[in-house]
């Protein structure tokens, strides 16, 4: 077992938003990453049949080393079981139930040694969202889910016209100002946006349609920086960054590993021999690469 904590992403959102479709998309486009998917719905493992390699008790193995299992009420045990698998997964994805509050799940993850809470991605059923958000029964649940999101996927965005999508984007900016917002179709989103950047960020591909949607840049500031301040600014500032990951030299000395997921950021010590460089990725529209370069140089 390696010393690196295992990153965990929670995928939330109400019923029908497309969580399951997106999980299948991630499995299809894992790009060599071994994913472990934990499902807390009604016990049905929602994996497309052609992906399934073998089925066991509550556990499905998927070509390419990925697995899927349902965890019922016992997330902790399921996570520990995942971490002990051989080969060890590279990333854990938790698909939460439609009424769950994803932030609460991520907080639980933060209590378990050996895992790194990577962020919450909340799917919204773009055409239905505004109506669902005022539903007397589930409206407040949906709003709570959105306010917990580091990244909101406006899924089924193709079913909206351009002005409708813009209006929804504005409404989300107001309702969940903390979250990065990405439109998607049938859950087909750049894997980097959901799972973070892989070990070889520049070689990995967003795939098809999503490619044109995203832009990225590698920051290599000349001098050591205040890594925490930089991470916070990237996460909270107006640079259009959805995800950032990489190593930079810190002004205090040493190397830091920086993770950004929407508004969430984390800075941890990194190995001295790590190659410096912070990859930032965001929607092409609104992505401000030159401002990021300036920010890094002044941080």
């Amino acid at each position, binding site marked *: 077992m390696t010393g690196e904590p295992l990153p965990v992403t929670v995928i939330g959102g109400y019923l029908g938003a497309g969580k399951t479709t997106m999980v299948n998309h991630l499995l299809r486009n894992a790009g060599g990453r071994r994913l472990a998917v934990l499902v807390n719905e009604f016990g049905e493992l929602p994996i497309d049949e052609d992906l399934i390699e073998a089925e066991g008790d509550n556990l499905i193995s998927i070509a390419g080393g990925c697995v899927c299992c349902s965890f019922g*009420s016992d997330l902790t045990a399921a996570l520990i079981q995942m971490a002990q698998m051989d080969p060890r997964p590279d990333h854990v994805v938790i698909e939460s139930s439609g009424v769950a509050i994803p932030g609460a799940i991520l907080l639980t993850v933060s209590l378990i040694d050996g895992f790194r809470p990577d962020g919450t991605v909340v799917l919204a059923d773009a055409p239905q969202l505004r109506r669902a958000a005022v539903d007397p029964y589930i409206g407040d649940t949906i709003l709570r889910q959105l306010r917990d999101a580091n990244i909101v996927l406006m899924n089924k965005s193709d079913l909206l016209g351009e002005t409708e999508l813009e209006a929804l984007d504005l409404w989300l900016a107001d309702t969940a100002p903390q979250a990065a917002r990405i439109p998607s179709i049938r859950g087909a989103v750049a894997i980097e946006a959901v799972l973070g950047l892989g070990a070889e960020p520049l070689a990995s591909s967003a795939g098809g349609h999503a490619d044109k949607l995203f832009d990225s840049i590698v920051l290599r500031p000349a001098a050591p920086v205040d890594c925490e301040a930089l991470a916070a600014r990237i996460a909270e500032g107006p640079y259009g960054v959805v995800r950032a990951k990489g190593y930079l030299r810190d002004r205090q000395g040493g190397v830091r590993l920086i993770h950004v997921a929407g508004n969430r950021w984390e800075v941890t010590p990194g190995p001295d021999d790590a190659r410096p460089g912070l990859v930032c990725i965001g929607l092409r529209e609104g992505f401000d690469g030159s401002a990021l370069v300036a920010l890094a140089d002044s941080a």
Partner: protein
Amino acid sequence: MPATTIYSAQKIITMNPSRPVATHVAVRDGRILGAGTLEELETWGDYTLDDRFKDKILMPGMVEGHAHTMEGTLWRNVYLGYFDRMDPDGKVWSGVKTIEAVLERLKEAEAQITDPEAPLPGWQLDPIYLNNVRVTRQQLDSVSSTRPIGIMHASGHILNVNTKALELAGLMKTGLNHPGIPLGPDGYPTGELKGPEVMTPVGPHVGYERALTDCDEQGLRDFGKLCVRTGVTTITDLAARLTDDSVSMMLRVTGEKTYPACVVPLRFFLGLAPKDLVAEVVRLKGMSTERLSLGRIKVVADGSIQGFSARLRWPGYHNGAENGLWYVAPEQLSEIYHLALEAGVQVHTHTNGDQATELAIDTLGPALLKHPRRDHRFTLQHCQLADAAQFRRMKELGMCVNLFANHHFYWGDEHYKLTVGPDRATRMNACRTALDTGVPMAIHSDAPVTPLGPLFTAWGAVTRRTASGRVQGEEERITVAEALWAVTLGAAYTLHMDGEVGSIETGKRADFAVLEQDPTEVEPEALKDIPVWGTVQGGRVFAAADL
């Protein structure tokens, strides 16, 4: 010809409207041959007259429509509740009234355990009654620093643990950032763990296994003893996971010749897709025996009112707390209702808040239009905040209700002051309105949340007294006769078992509660204090004193 026994009694309250009172009851093959006078019953032929109950009062064996068998398992842990409570062996544990007394009782229990690493679990702590003083990790360390200690609160949603337990769970560190884990001035957790998501990582280390609502073999036997001591002969286990192992264990234990109750476990809805859930419950139904009745579903729609996790309609919580949580999505509830109606499977739905109740009603209406099924008896469990209009709609749809009458006593004052405020606290568990509206009604303890004891529950519905002694909602009180009906035929009706149990009349199972006093003659305020001699279940006599 099989043997007939005729029991004489000081009085037999039959709950049979054609013959409400009798002096004798004849039993053959575990069933009631008839109730009446000795002369009438002699006409059945040879018999043995049994006079052991001649000074006792017999009433139908009581039916607890909402309890959990885990009560039996919990009694192996240290009882730390505020109120006196009887254990399966009949010992009455005095309530602990101060934190010092809590620690004292833990120390006594600790001294009995030889294995220095064995966990020490306690249960039923209720800080509401201890001026909300919290137990700290350091205090529990004074009981033991070598063995993990965990105290479950009465709410079931908070656990207090010692340093050893935190260490074992990997939580004895600084830098934790979780609303469910308060930190002390030293930056370490205080040892209080709030909410299931922070309790589950620690629970197994302190003797609280993950599947908390499941009982084990000894727990089920001990649960049976509690039934005898409280006059209960039919009892639900309202949220059972019913794995293959637990079903075979329950079949084995309830199948023992001396098991004194009929257990009715409802399959908890989580873990299976609705269509698989319904199919599984149909399969389980076929495995039923005379003392294990399977084949019903339990859905949980929302949380609890005192935990502020119940779903309330406007104006929400009295103290301004955010609305509670859904444990089922409306679409999922609808799918379960549709499929269950189609398959003829009954669903009991936990709805504490009035919005959860509204959702269940809103969901069942359209499902019934699609799958008309007379006599479905879908039951709302707790349904504590329903208003009159909701009861009218429940009546229209043929729903039943099982109201939480014990809540008035245990948390009524809190509901009045804190959770829902005076007006709605007054209408909580509106038994009078339910009966006047014609909604078939039961009342329950939700043991182990409150102690098992239908006579106490009946007392709660009759008096509506809170722990501070106030009568809360006098207009919603019901009569003793109505309350006794609710804990017998009323509860049996919600389980489709009113044709088999719940009254003393020809053809029914010979299930009696044997009482030392007449519940219809004592002062209503004394209902809860009537001593229970024991029970007769399926014609088998169980004396509490001989357990």
